[in-house]
């Protein structure tokens, strides 16, 4: 590169014009090339004279990914060449055919009466049983053949054709069946219904109410599958909220009520000061229904959070006069000390689901996200200044937003679960 004489460099630097610096908005728009021509020229004219603004623009620009993997770059053409080969092409076609055939066979052989299966992601309860199937049979003017006849028809249809059964949500609506032709559809319907005839009739949806007993004998209908986990239906089903609220820690079974239009049950964290607790301590009662329903009444999948919440359900937290963290699982009748990394001197505690915060003297602050099983020390700091005052009050209405109050009237707030803090 041609060298620039030193005198030219000096004069280039010396002839800077003292113009007002552009707005950060303008510099950003300049860097992103979204300025109009006139404004672009104005900003460029300033940058030509102002070293600081040039540096800001340079620092503010995103570094492009210059490390393009040489291996990937060189292999790409080879890989593409290989993929162009007929072998892979036909192999892919064969794989697709195999997958489709497998899916069809699985559908055909899948037992139709899977009772109530709640898809982990689908917001609705899918049924493959129409409570009025017998009405359908008679409405088509057909009679139900005997066992031998049933076997013959089933075998024939399995050989000849495939029927797609699409069961649409929501649970209240009758399931719909898509057929290839009118006559074949009727036979397919008959086949499915005949299969269903061989099983005990599952109870209609309305029967799975809190007051109704579970369907007898059919093993698949005595359990509810939620997110891959099987939950036995409690014979003496009670209101789900009551059951869950009283389940407490270590409950081995849970009651599930499947209703078509369940009200949406949200979460609630109740923080209250009990009359028994000393005025300087803070007691928290946590109530939570881990089974969230969506607007259409379907159950959402259970998450790890739900499991932890269920485990910590009904727990109350407080601090003792000697600075220990305590927990009660029987509504406050008895309290058990919870070790917090061997520390004491706690004066305030806050709990939301299984997320527990305990704070005390000298900025002592610990956090547990698993209901008190494990604790992590948190050291809030703001602009390099750590929190050293005594924490007298903690408030966390959810897992992310929280506030600490100290004895010297400081308020420390976080909006990201304690990763960063602001002091007011």
């Amino acid at each position, binding site marked *: 590169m041609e060298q620039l*004489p030193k005198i030219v460099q000096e004069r280039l*630097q010396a002839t800077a014009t003292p113009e007002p610096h552009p707005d950060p908005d303008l510099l*950003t728009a300049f860097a992103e090339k979204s300025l109009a021509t006139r404004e672009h020229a104005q900003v460029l004219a300033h940058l030509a004279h102002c070293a*600081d603004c040039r540096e800001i623009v340079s620092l*503010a620009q995103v570094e492009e990914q210059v490390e393009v993997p040489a291996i990937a770059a060189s292999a790409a053409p080879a890989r593409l060449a290989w993929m162009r080969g007929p072998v892979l092409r036909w192999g892919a076609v064969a794989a697709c055919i195999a997958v489709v055939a497998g899916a069809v066979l699985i559908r055909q052989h899948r037992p139709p009466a899977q009772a109530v299966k709640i898809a982990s992601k689908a917001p609705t309860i899918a049924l493959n049983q129409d409570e009025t199937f017998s009405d359908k049979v008679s409405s088509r003017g057909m009679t139900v053949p005997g066992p031998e006849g049933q076997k013959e028809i089933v075998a024939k249809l399995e050989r000849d054709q495939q029927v797609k059964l699409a069961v649409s949500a929501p649970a209240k609506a009758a399931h719909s069946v898509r057929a290839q032709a009118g006559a074949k559809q009727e036979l397919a319907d008959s086949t499915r219904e005949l299969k269903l005839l061989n099983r005990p009739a599952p109870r209609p949806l309305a029967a799975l109410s809190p007051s109704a007993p579970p369907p007898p004998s059919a093993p698949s209908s005595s359990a509810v599958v939620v997110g891959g986990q099987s939950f036995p239906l409690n014979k003496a089903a009670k209101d789900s909220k009551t059951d869950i609220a009283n389940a407490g820690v270590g409950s081995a079974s849970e009651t599930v009520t499947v209703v078509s239009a369940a009200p949406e049950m949200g979460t609630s964290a109740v923080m209250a000061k009990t009359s028994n607790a000393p005025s300087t301590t803070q007691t928290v009662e946590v109530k939570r229904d881990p089974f969230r329903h969506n607007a259409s009444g379907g159950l959402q999948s259970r998450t790890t959070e739900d499991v932890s919440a269920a485990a910590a359900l009904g727990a109350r937290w407080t601090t003792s006069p000697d600075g220990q963290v305590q927990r009660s699982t029987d509504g406050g009748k008895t309290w058990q000390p919870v070790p917090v990394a061997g520390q004491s001197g706690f004066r305030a505690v806050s709990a939301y689901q299984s997320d527990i915060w305990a704070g005390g003297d000298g900025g002592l602050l610990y956090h547990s996200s698993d209901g008190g099983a494990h604790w992590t020390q948190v050291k809030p700091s703001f602009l390099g200044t750590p929190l050293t005052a005594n924490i007298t009050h903690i408030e966390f209405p959810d897992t992310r937003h929280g506030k600490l109050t100290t004895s010297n009237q400081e308020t420390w707030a976080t909006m990201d679960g304690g990763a*960063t803090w*602001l002091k007011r």
Partner: protein
Amino acid sequence: MEELYRKSGAEKFGFSSGQFAAILEEVGTRFLAPKAASEETRALYVSLKLEELVLARACAAGHERAWDTFLVRYREKLYDMATGIARQSSAARELADGIYADLYGTTERDGKRVSKLASYCGRGSLEGWLRTVMAQEFVNRYRKQKRLVSLDEESEEGAQFTAKPSDPPAVVDPRVESATDEALGVLNSEDRYVLSAYYLDGRTLAEIARTLGRHESTISRKLDKLAKSLRKQIVAGLALRGMSRRQAEEALEVDVRDVSVNIRKHLTQKSGAQTFPEKKAEAGAADGPG
């Protein structure tokens, strides 16, 4: 305006259409001429990043949901940006914390919280604006600080606390200065920016190309062409000022201050090599075999 209001999603952050219009008017006042045409105003409003503008203003107003959205989108990026700018983790952390506090608004004016986000106008992306603000803060705060060196470290390293030698005032031919200024004066902004960024700031061709949206080879050719063209123009200007061509080229090639430094170095090396050679010879003879 209604369309822009709907597009921005201002309603979900509690802004009425009137409040939204007031925000746009403020932006227009800042970037448009007092009597700007309606087309120009409309073009400006349409070019704004409305959704991000509304988010920033909602955060500045203390809207909790807006802050949730802001944190989800930008919290991690803030620290990544700081690391990219400051390069050192401790400085990056401090830079990010400082910016975070400014964005949140820890200071109050007239009983109202002052948030830096209130100054975002949506001309560029919010992420880019955050990066620019952070770079600005870095340039202001860190690059202007003098590096503090421990005295113990210096003595261990053997550094000497010598007085800084005062350079003699450079006597540059005023004709060279004026010819150079004349040649630089005819450059357009882009050419001057390229020269300044490369020769003064030490930017790479790739960085300059990225800023200007050009190809690296284009910048390389431009620099070569500019350097040659400047030299030619200065020589021509010096010729007009009474210098011969040879004198003009010598004036550009040789800097008086560079020559004086060389002489100083040369003299220092000579005296160091010949320090008391005769005394050393005598000492060697005295030690001898005995």
